[in-house]
């Protein structure tokens, strides 16, 4: 409670709050009673339990029957007059037995205000319906219930009803009626002792005087009027930083009514009641029933301004003298002085004002960017463009131009590599030329002459060659799209092209940049290599180097040339094109598995079970399994379980890094395929690449000599071989048979190794296979001697033709190194620069084959023989028709494919199709594997590169 010492002369200060009682010296300090010590009592001073413990009766006075005054027994009065009184006095309601304590808040029957029965919502609804029915019946119309629903009786809110009962009429304001006062009375309020100069003060705002401008007749002074119905203006405190009149989106208005507020805005001012909130916490006994604690707190419960609400209460808590401010109010001061405050004698410095700038006359309230400043540093031609148009987005090229770079490329075709461009050009030209050539060809007598003619064209020019191909394969030419390597070499020999900067990094990698002389030599070396010069290092070796240095540098160059091939060439070397599948590249190790699968299926189809279909893998059983089977563990101490997956990297970098003279390999070097028509006419046997056994089997030219051999004419063969005029044959024969060939034929994923075992195995395989072709037996022992024969004889015999060819081809221009693989020789073999030589060779081969075929015994006899001896007959398709005698490899391959398709057609039910799909997938996998392996190799290459550098 605030106390006010009202000595006006001395006290100018205000005291707020409860004064602490003054300490007297003699009195000891009293400890405040703790909560536990406090007890709640009722009116009789008895301890009152609170909450759940309120129960129990306490009747009478200290649980006596009587009252404070004592017990007064009622007297029974019986008379005629007072009969009714007595009857009334009989207690018959529970309340009659209760005292006021019971009816209090904490008693057993607390009384409280509640909505009267007739005013509950249900009751009102029922009433409303009654009203509706009344109206409906009163109208005299026969109303259906649907129509009844439309009738809504006038609803007056209960508050208005109450107000009306209290005398309120519509249009009146709320509040007690007031007497109107005259206008002149207002002047009485102001203190006459104060003299006012200048403008009159505004009249003090007072509710009574606010409506005093109305005319009030004199005689109606005593009449009370209802207050005017005025909407009170709610002045809101501006508590945000938005502009005036701006309201942000009010979520309660913007969202539909049904929206649930997950995060209602916090209304409570923090800190007042920490955490204790909600119904679970009751009111303590001593807290009293304070203001509604369950309601959320809001600022409206607090005074936000230091303004006194009530005139009557205005001294409450304020100790300032009331008249103080009014007396010292200076004349210049306009407005009402706050109660309790006095004006300071020192006036505040007026805040410095910064007036807004004066606007120029022609000012338009819109902003324009000045273009000139932005574009001032740009070249003129750009400026001109942008003046007219809206600023457009700069592309990378534009930016490059702005920065003064020369444009790198203008179109997509700049991305195409030089040789590809050339090829496209060549193709265009070739198509055009082929058209003309075709016309010309009509005039020619025979097509064969024509092909020979085209073939005899000098191969240096590209376009005629392309022509020839177009002629033979006009439709498939574009799809094949073989790289025209010769064009590439031309461009590369020329040196770095003028503007091919995109791939320049890959092309012009200079591994010996630190040593310019060496780099120069290397460049020369590369150029020579590309020209196909034999032993390119010999010419460029500098004279003042030792032999050892020379040999080392040579090796180095060879390595570098291997590794620093342009990326595109590297890629093209790795990836097999779809169009090239039938080419020599098929023989790469990648195709081994596919061939294997093909071999197996073909073997199974032919019923040639055995070596081809039988595979053996190392398999490690679990030791426990061995124990359970009562078998000793075959691999004691082995951690591996199952089939140890031997996955050798077949395309490892080490396969490529054989440090011979760097031969521009098949990917880079010109390898212009010969026109196939020439091939067909001249070299029927050329294409036998031995990718699959069945190609060989299908090939009649292959069958012929071997069958001769089976007949035991081994001597004849050696005679033939011996009778060959070439000396190199002996060299070749004395060497072990070429492993690549064997590998290509008898590919075994596991046993494919360059070890010696492999040789034996493959040899055996070849012999076994041949033997099987001749004889299908249940028992092997009776032809074991024959097997020995074939083993000795056939393996070389199978190859003799091939060998012969190779020998021939290698004897032509350059023999390179001896360790070059068969495949590589073949690619060399197909070089067009040697065509004339090849022609000769082919003729020789053809002659030789003729000789061989003459030696061949009649087939029928042979088969009869075998039938007699070994049971079931050979499958008919092993016996090739004579028309197929001169098919080359390509055609036989196509036939194989056809047969596969037929086989596929046979399969009808779904189950089979699934299997078929699987098979196809299996066929597809090797290609994917290549990709993966190659990816790995690229990394290898990089690694090795780092090592070398």
């Amino acid at each position, binding site marked *: 409670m605030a106390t006010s010492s009202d000595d006006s002369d001395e006290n100018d200060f205000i005291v707020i709050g409860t004064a602490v009682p003054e300490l007297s010296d003699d009195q000891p300090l009293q400890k405040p009673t703790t909560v536990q010590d406090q007890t709640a009592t009722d009116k009789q001073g008895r301890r009152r339990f609170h909450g759940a413990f309120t129960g129990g009766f306490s009747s009478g006075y200290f649980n006596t029957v009587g009252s404070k005054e004592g017990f007064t027994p009622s007297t029974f009065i019986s008379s005629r007059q007072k009969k009714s009184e007595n009857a009334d006095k009989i207690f018959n309601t529970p309340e009659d037995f209760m005292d006021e304590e019971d009816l209090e808040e904490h008693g057993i029957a607390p009384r409280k205000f509640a909505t009267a029965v007739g005013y509950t919502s249900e009751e009102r609804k029922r009433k409303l319906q009654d009203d509706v029915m009344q109206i409906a019946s009163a109208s005299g119309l026969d109303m259906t219930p649907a129509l009844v629903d439309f009738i809504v009786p006038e609803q007056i809110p209960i508050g208005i009803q109450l107000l009306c009962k209290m005398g309120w009429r519509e249009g009146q304001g709320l509040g007690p009626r007031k007497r109107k006062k005259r206008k002149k009375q207002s002047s009485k309020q102001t203190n006459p002792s104060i003299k006012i100069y200048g403008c009159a003060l505004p009249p003090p705002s007072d509710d009574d005087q606010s409506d005093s401008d109305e005319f009030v007749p004199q005689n109606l002074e005593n009449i009370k009027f209802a207050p005017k119905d005025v909407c009170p203006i709610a002045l809101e405190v501006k508590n945000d930083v938005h502009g005036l009149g701006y309201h942000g989106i009010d979520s309660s208005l913007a969202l539909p009514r049904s929206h649930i507020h997950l995060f209602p805005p916090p209304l409570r001012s923090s800190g007042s009641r920490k955490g204790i909130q909600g119904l679970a916490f009751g009111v303590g006994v001593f807290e009293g029933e304070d203001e509604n604690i369950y309601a959320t707190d809001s600022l409206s419960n607090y005074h936000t301004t230091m303004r006194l609400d009530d005139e009557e209460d205005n001294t409450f808590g304020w100790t300032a003298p009331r008249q103080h401010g009014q007396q010292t109010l200076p004349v210049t001061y306009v407005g009402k002085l706050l109660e309790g405050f006095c004006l300071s004698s020192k006036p505040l410095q007026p805040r410095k004002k910064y007036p807004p700038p004066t606007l120029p006359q022609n000012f338009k309230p819109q902003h324009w960017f000045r273009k000139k400043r932005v574009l001032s540093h740009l070249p003129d031609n750009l400026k001109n463009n942008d003046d007219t148009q809206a600023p457009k987005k700069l592309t990378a090229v534009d930016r490059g131009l702005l920065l003064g770079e020369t444009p790198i490329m203008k179109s997509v075709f700049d991305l195409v590599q030089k040789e590809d461009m050339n090829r496209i050009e060549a193709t265009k030209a070739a198509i055009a030329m082929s058209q003309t050539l075709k016309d010309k060809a009509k005039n020619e007598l025979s097509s064969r002459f024509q092909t020979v003619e085209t073939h005899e064209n000098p191969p240096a020019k590209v376009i005629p060659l392309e022509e020839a191909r177009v002629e033979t394969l006009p439709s498939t030419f574009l799809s094949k799209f073989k790289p025209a390597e010769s064009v590439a070499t031309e461009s590369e020999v020329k040196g770095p092209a003028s503007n091919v900067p995109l791939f320049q990094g890959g092309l012009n990698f200079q591994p010996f940049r630190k040593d310019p002389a060496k780099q120069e030599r290397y460049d020369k070396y590369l150029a020579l290599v590309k020209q196909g010069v034999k032993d390119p290092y010999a010419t460029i070796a500098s004279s003042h180097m030792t032999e050892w240095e020379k040999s080392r540098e040579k090796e180095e160059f060879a390595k570098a040339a291997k590794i620093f091939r342009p990326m595109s060439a590297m890629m093209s070397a790795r990836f097999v094109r779809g169009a090239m599948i039938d080419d020599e590249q098929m023989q790469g190790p990648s195709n081994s598995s596919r061939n294997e699968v093909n071999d197996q299926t073909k073997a199974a189809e032919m019923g040639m079970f055995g070596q081809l*279909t*039988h*595979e053996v893998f190392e398999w490690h059983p679990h030791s426990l399994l061995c124990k*359970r*089977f009562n078998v000793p*563990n075959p691999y004691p101490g082995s951690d591996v379980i199952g089939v140890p997956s031997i996955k050798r990297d077949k395309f490892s970098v080490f396969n490529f890094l054989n440090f011979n003279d760097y031969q521009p390999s098949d990917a880079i070097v010109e390898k212009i395929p010969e026109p196939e028509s020439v091939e067909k006419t001249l070299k029927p046997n050329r294409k036998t690449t031995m990718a699959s056994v069945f190609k060989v089997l299908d090939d009649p030219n292959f069958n012929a000599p071997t069958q001769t051999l089976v007949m035991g004419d081994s001597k004849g063969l050696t005679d033939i071989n011996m009778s060959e005029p070439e000396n190199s044959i002996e060299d070749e024969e004395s060497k072990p048979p070429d492993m690549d060939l064997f590998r290509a034929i008898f590919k075994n994923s596991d046993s494919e190794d360059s070890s010696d075992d492999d040789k034996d195995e493959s040899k055996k395989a070849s012999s076994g296979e041949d033997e099987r072709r001749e004889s299908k037996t249940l028992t092997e022992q009776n032809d074991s001697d024959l097997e020995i024969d074939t083993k000795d004889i056939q393996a070389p015999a199978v190859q003799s033709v091939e060998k012969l060819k190779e020998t021939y081809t290698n004897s032509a221009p350059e023999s390179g190194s001896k360790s070059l693989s068969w495949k590589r020789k073949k690619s060399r073999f197909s070089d067009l620069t040697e065509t004339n030589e090849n022609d000769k060779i082919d003729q020789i081969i053809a002659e030789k084959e003729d000789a061989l075929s003459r030696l061949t015994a009649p087939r029928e006899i042979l088969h009869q023989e075998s039938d007699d001896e070994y049971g079931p007959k050979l499958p008919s398709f092993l016996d090739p028709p004579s028309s197929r005698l001169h098919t080359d490899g390509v055609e036989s391959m196509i036939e194989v494919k056809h047969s596969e398709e037929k086989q596929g057609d046979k399969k009808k039910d779904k189950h089979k199709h699934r299997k078929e799909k*699987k098979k196809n997938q299996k066929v597809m996998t090797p290609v994917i594997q290549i990709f993966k392996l190659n990816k790995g190799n690229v990394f290898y290459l990089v690694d090795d590169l780092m090592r070398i550098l």
Partner: protein
Amino acid sequence: MAWPNKRTQIIDCKQGAVRCVKFNVDGNYCLTCGSDKTVKLWNPHKNLLLKTYIGHGYEVLDAHSSGDNAHICSGGMDKAVVLFDVSTGQTVRKFRDHAGTVNTVCFNEESTVILSGSIDCSVRAWDIRSKKHEPIQILNEAKDSVTSVQVSDHEILSGSADSKVRRYDLRMGKMFSDYVGKPISCVRFTRDSQCVLVSSTDTTVKLIDKDSGEMLNQYQGHKNVSYKIDCCLNHQDTQVLSGSEDGKVFIWDLVEAKLVDTLNHETSRTIHSLSFHPSEPLLLTACADKVFVWESNH
């Protein structure tokens, strides 16, 4: 030469489709697997149902009884291999590791290991001596569903839909695979364990030399294109028998590969399961919901 040519009993198994019928070791009893999730034990000679084994969650595709007749293992479409106790009918073990339908189950000779071939391309070896729930070893070399498994004393033979017969030789520590060309429906050792009888869906039964992989003989005439049809040898290894999709059982001479007889079941349904008595010319065949008992009248 006596072969079963007379139908003596027709057992109506009342368990839906009979997926498999198999003699026990001594041939006195037989097991049938039904599509109603049960395995039933019969005395086929007296047409007597002895016990029904319940424990599978789906169709039972194969069952095998142990050498001591104490246990039955079975596998089914619920991907589980279940080991039953014969006398009590209780489920002793349940092996759940296969990722797909278990096509075939087999005890080893000592009945200590169950081998199960599944559509998940694997053969799993389960140890029934230990309490482990994981297989001892997974033979996952197959590239397609394993359709048939047989065990000899030291070899595990499996036929797969990837057209390969795989033989795992525990003694040698080697796996032999033979490519047959068509998905394999059944593989069986001959009794001398020197050859393997392979039936594949190209309507042939082949006798393949175990070691070299050479085909020794080929038996044709029946029809086997889409179903997994069993083949078997007779008790003396002199004849080869195979079911067929035209309601017959074909019997060939093993050496001459000539058709000896066909057992007509007077139905057009597939005879898909066969079991030959281990010592007598007695054959059990399963067709639809019935099991037929064939004896020799010679």
